[in-house]
């Protein structure tokens, strides 16, 4: 999967391009079968994502949490961990941020300070939730997939309880979330109508850059990868595997918590039941698709965000469900995985001859 020495350089990209084309063809086929016009659908998605500055800024709004989730997951993937609990980590980020906001809202601190502290609290929340999955894995023998899934459900329950219980809006509790914060506590956006916060965008880009350098250029990244590829061998060579495993979880949790914090302070200005909006799971798909190569994380996440935002208009324009975006993303990742396997199989056949 990662060893490319023994083959011609063009083969990998050729297989991947083939997978992308096949994914588009398959999605077109699904559209044709359901009596929908494929080209109109694709054109609508493209227009819905890049047609105007307004929609493109929405793509960027959606890119921010996805990029943060991807950044975190590249760390855990690097260490060979399937951090499926990232959804819960994003939620806890949102919860801790809201908690800090509520505690400091009536204090004398300047708003910028309150926002900054709340974001830090969100990062801490995400980290704690991730470490919980890490401790369960390292010391309880609980597979991170199931520990993480369990913690996702607990996070959902906690979130709902807060929104409908202690933090409910005065008078009525509802699925629309907690009482919005005072406008002075909203993260500044580009224009008053836009939801795009330049500071959040900067933080997300910073995150992927940090992860790129951590993975590609540091001793830490090297050791993480060693733990990921062969934990036992790394342990025998003197790498404290447990510590690195927990470190990968903690770093991922911080990025996930930041994503939750930004959703609360910059996008929704309150805590809502679906605060993670599936960005964690989508981040897993992106991280899988880029296969450890952090440099590809940003463009692929942008592409996925564009698909999500671009498909929002589909129900109105073509009476198609917006889940078409997910169908394209899923088909794409599945076919890339299969192309990867096929390529290895062909190579193995050749070397046997």
């Amino acid at each position, binding site marked *: 999967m990662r060893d490319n020495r023994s083959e011609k350089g063009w083969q990998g990209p050729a297989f991947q391009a083939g997978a992308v084309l096949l994914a588009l063809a398959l999605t077109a086929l699904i559209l044709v079968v359901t009596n929908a016009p494929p080209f109109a659908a694709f054109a609508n998605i493209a227009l819905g994502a890049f047609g105007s500055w307004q929609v493109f800024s929405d793509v960027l709004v959606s890119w921010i949490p996805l990029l943060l989730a991807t950044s975190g997951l590249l760390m855990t993937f690097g260490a060979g961990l399937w951090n499926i609990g990232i959804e819960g980590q994003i939620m806890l980020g949102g919860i801790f941020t809201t908690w800090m906001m509520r505690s400091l809202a009536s204090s004398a601190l300047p708003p910028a300070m309150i926002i900054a502290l709340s974001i830090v609290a969100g990062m801490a929340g995400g980290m704690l939730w991730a470490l919980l999955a890490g401790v*369960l894995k390292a*010391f309880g023998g609980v597979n991170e997939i199931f520990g993480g899934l369990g913690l996702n459900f607990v996070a959902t329950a906690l979130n709902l309880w807060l929104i409908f219980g202690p933090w409910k809006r005065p008078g009525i509790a509802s699925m629309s979330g907690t009482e919005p914060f005072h406008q002075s506590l909203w993260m500044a956006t580009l224009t008053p109508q836009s939801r795009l916060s330049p500071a959040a965008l900067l933080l997300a880009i910073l995150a992927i850059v940090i992860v790129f350098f951590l993975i590609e250029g540091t001793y830490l990244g090297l050791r993480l990868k060693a733990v990921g590829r062969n934990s036992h061998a790394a342990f025998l060579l003197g790498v404290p595997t447990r510590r690195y495993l927990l470190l990968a979880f903690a770093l991922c949790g911080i990025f996930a918590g930041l994503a939750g914090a930004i959703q609360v302070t910059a996008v929704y200005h309150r805590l809502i039941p679906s605060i993670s909006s599936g960005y964690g799971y989508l981040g897993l798909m992106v991280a899988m698709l880029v296969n450890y190569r952090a440099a590809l994380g940003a463009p692929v996440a942008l592409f996925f965000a564009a698909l999500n935002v671009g498909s929002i208009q589909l129900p109105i324009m073509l009476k198609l469900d917006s889940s078409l975006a997910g169908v394209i993303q*899923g088909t794409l990742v599945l076919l890339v995985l299969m192309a990867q396997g096929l390529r290895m199989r062909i190579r193995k056949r050749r070397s046997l001859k």
Partner: protein
Amino acid sequence: MTQTALLINLAGVLTAAGPVVFAVIGETVSERAGVINLSMNGTILLTAMAGFAIALATKSVVLGFVAGAVVGGLVALVVAFSSITLKQSQVAVGFVLTLLCRDLSYFLGNPIMGQAGPRLSIVPIPVLKNIPILGLLLFRQDFMTYMSFLVILLAWLFIFRTRPGLTLRGIGERPEAAFVRGAPVNRLRYLYTTLGGAIAGIAGPMYSLSVKAGWKGTISGLDGIGWIVLAITIFGGWKPLRAALGAYLFAFLQWLGLVLQPALPGVPSQVLQVAPFPLMILTLLLVNMGNAEGVKRLIAALPGPARHAMDKMLRALNATPPSSLGTPFDPE
């Protein structure tokens, strides 16, 4: 609550557990062969949509269930092909399929959303239905709920009491040994993964044609159940009887949440609805904990009586997965 009302309620719990039973048994069969089919959450949604769509189009509930089994088997076949033939990570492929099948069900199911369609009817069993208590509880159900009782028994018989069942356990536990003894490991893994997927594929139509009749897209209330199915499979220790117990426990807890709601006005209803999920996971942690080094050392440090009690409890709950679960087998 009168006795009759309580019994009718509990009979409803058995009905509600039916789809979970099918899914858990299917997953158990697949994992016994060494293949994790992580796609359960997507499989249940897609088969629910497909089963309802076919039943709606053909006016036949039977064909709806057949469609569910076929779709479930096909999804599992993708897992098998990608992991066995193409040697990709089972978890990766399963996870992608989880999301892909979910979105596919929402996309393809859009035109039939909210339509009224056929549904299963109650078929009381003559004579048996008149047995006091049990009659009301067990023998006034729909056909597929009876089948859910049967599938538990059949799976148990097959896995633990037949020769092919022994081979099934063998290819999941010690594939090398099974191979040496002449078992075509990878071909059998294909077979059992697809079979397990087909069994699990019954779960979807059971929802859309009975337990939560109809297709309501994102508000069908089915998103999440597949993850619980995977947890119950572990809780069940890869044994059909214990897995079924887990399924009934889960359905019972969900019912309890509904019943307790008026008694607990302080707890929002949304929390009670998700309460069984964390509870299930907590049990899961206990099941797993006995295997961990740290926990073993912790228990060893306890004073005598407490140690014995803890030891006993953990041993009763403990379950070890098939040794080769999730790892590919290469005959060379």
